[in-house]
């Protein structure tokens, strides 16, 4: 019998076009598929990146689908695969599988004021959505962006943040947990920035991406502002191994984060233990 089905584990050969070391831990990559084939992702989706002999790791796409031809990642060095990726350079090849999961529901967000809050690594998937929104600026209401990082040295997309802040009807605020020499910006937790933002809760969608501890406190602030729980979107971090809803690693209650997520509404997950 011949196999009639295509393997869901099929890997495409991607080529690294550009790399840049951004921080001690984060490195930027621009990648293209053979024939500059479109990745076809939504903001907030992830792919599995392969380094042959080392393995595969789930990585968020940081660029917006509005930018065609190639796509981008900002990868934190955290384990075997990401460690090896950090040694790679222009012209090297990496395996790409995906995109997987449900990203941010951009159609649903149309017409809403957006309050986008990113903490640390969470700013990477959020970058995809912010770029998408700014590329389609007329479809969305006012845009508030809150960016939180540990230290001034770990601020991601620093140049772009300056550019975003200049865009019409966009307000951007940046804070670091610990300041440093020469830092003139804000110092303190991101939660402190939320109460001061004027919001019309019924017409606001909040998008939160960050470490688990951030969700706990940020979501409390958003609920205090009376933003409905189905208008609060979160992206959950799990260690997906297969990406196709089988291997079990990313499961949160009955959800496979790689299939039904990684983006959920807070309403969907608020009653599940082990989610945040």
């Amino acid at each position, binding site marked *: 019998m011949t196999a009639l089905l295509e393997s869901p584990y099929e890997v495409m050969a991607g080529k690294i076009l550009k790399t840049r070391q951004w921080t001690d831990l984060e490195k930027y990559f621009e990648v293209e598929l053979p024939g500059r084939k479109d990745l076809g992702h939504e903001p907030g989706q992830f792919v599995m990146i392969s380094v*042959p002999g080392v393995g595969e790791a789930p990585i968020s796409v940081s660029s917006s689908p509005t930018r065609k031809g190639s796509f981008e990642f900002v990868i934190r060095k*955290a384990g075997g695969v990401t460690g090896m990726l950090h040694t790679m350079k222009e012209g090297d090849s990496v395996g790409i599988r995906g995109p997987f999961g449900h990203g941010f529901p951009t159609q649903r967000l149309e017409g809403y004021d957006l309050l986008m809050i990113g903490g640390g690594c969470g700013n990477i998937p959020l970058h995809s959505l912010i770029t998408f929104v700014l590329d389609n600026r007329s479809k969305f209401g006012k845009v508030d962006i809150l960016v939180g990082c540990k230290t001034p040295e770990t601020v991601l997309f620093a140049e772009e943040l300056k550019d975003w802040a200049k865009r019409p009807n966009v307000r951007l605020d940046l804070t670091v947990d610990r300041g440093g020499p020469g830092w003139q910006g804000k110092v303190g937790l991101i939660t402190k920035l939320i109460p001061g933002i004027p919001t019309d809760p019924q017409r606001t969608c909040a998008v939160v991406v960050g470490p688990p501890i951030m969700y706990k406190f940020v979501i409390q602030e958003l609920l205090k502002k009376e933003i409905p729980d189905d208008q609060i979107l979160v992206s959950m971090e799990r260690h997906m191994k297969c990406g196709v809803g089988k291997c079990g690693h990313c499961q949160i209650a009955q959800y496979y984060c790689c299939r039904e997520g990684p983006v959920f509404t807070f309403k969907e997950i608020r009653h599940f233990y082990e989610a945040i």
Partner: protein
Amino acid sequence: MNHYMVLKKKDFNAFIEKLSKKMKVAAPVRKGVKNFAFEEVTRGDAISRVSLPTILPPKKYFMPQRETIQTFDRAVPRWNSVVSENDAIVIFGVHTCDLSGIQFLNAVMGTPPKDANYLARKANITVIGLECNDYCDAYASCKAMKTHLPSGGYDLFFTDIGDAFMVQTGSAAGETLAQETGFFTTADTGEQKKLGNIRKKKEKIFKDEISVKYANLRTVFEKTVQSEVWEDIGSRCVACGNCTNVCPTCYCFDIQDEIDLNLRTGRRVRVWDGCQNEEFAKVAGGENFRRKRGQRQRHRYMRKFAYPMEKYGTYACTGCGRCTRTCMAKISLKETIHALGEEAKS
């Protein structure tokens, strides 16, 4: 069409022998006093027909412990998917609990995006069920899980009726296989009656083994998520992962790369993994979403009695009793359900 045939016991050896000349035949083989394992056989008398479940369920033929899904050569930017097809194989002696396990795995792996590797193996497997006329031991809960009677999932199904096996066909493939061996005859009314008697006797023998009714299981588990029972189980569990390895419906896996000694060529394999292993739900930043053993045990139970109801419309427990039988810490499925059931009442 479902219909009944008969295979005389005196022909059983010849039947297995003939079958094994055409294709691989796997069946339970005795491994010590109370242990049995599915292994390749060529003779009928090598097969153990006792009802006690094998150490590992037949899932190992559908989804081996270790399976290559890709090959690569680091010098070439290309990954080659491997969907390896097993040789045709007949699995004989699959009890009704394990048949329901296979049915569950089929549903999971057949849900899009379909698992090509699993389905390619399944296409070459013929399943011959074997009825348990009596309980295997006190760990089983097949009546409570409604798996003590045949309910699909087989190509042929055998019931021991004394000097012969009553054989029910479940698929055209099963029917053809039986016909080709030439040992099967059409069942007469006397033999039909013997089967009826066995089933009647089973009604008396098999009683609900757990104190919670089938229909209420999901609610009980959903109501007792914060129960101290999980703390207690967690304090006893040694996180060895035996319970998930032996479970007929556990299918979680890891994907790993292996590189050859030339440091150039290698393969990507999928290997069995389980939610009881500490690293299972850990992410790169170090956060572990099920850090405690109690949380991991609760997750295992929820994946049998709550989540699959939502996703696949069925429970994922087959009542085979393997998890309890194999547990070094004596964590008992029946006792756990009983304790949770009592708590849900209050």
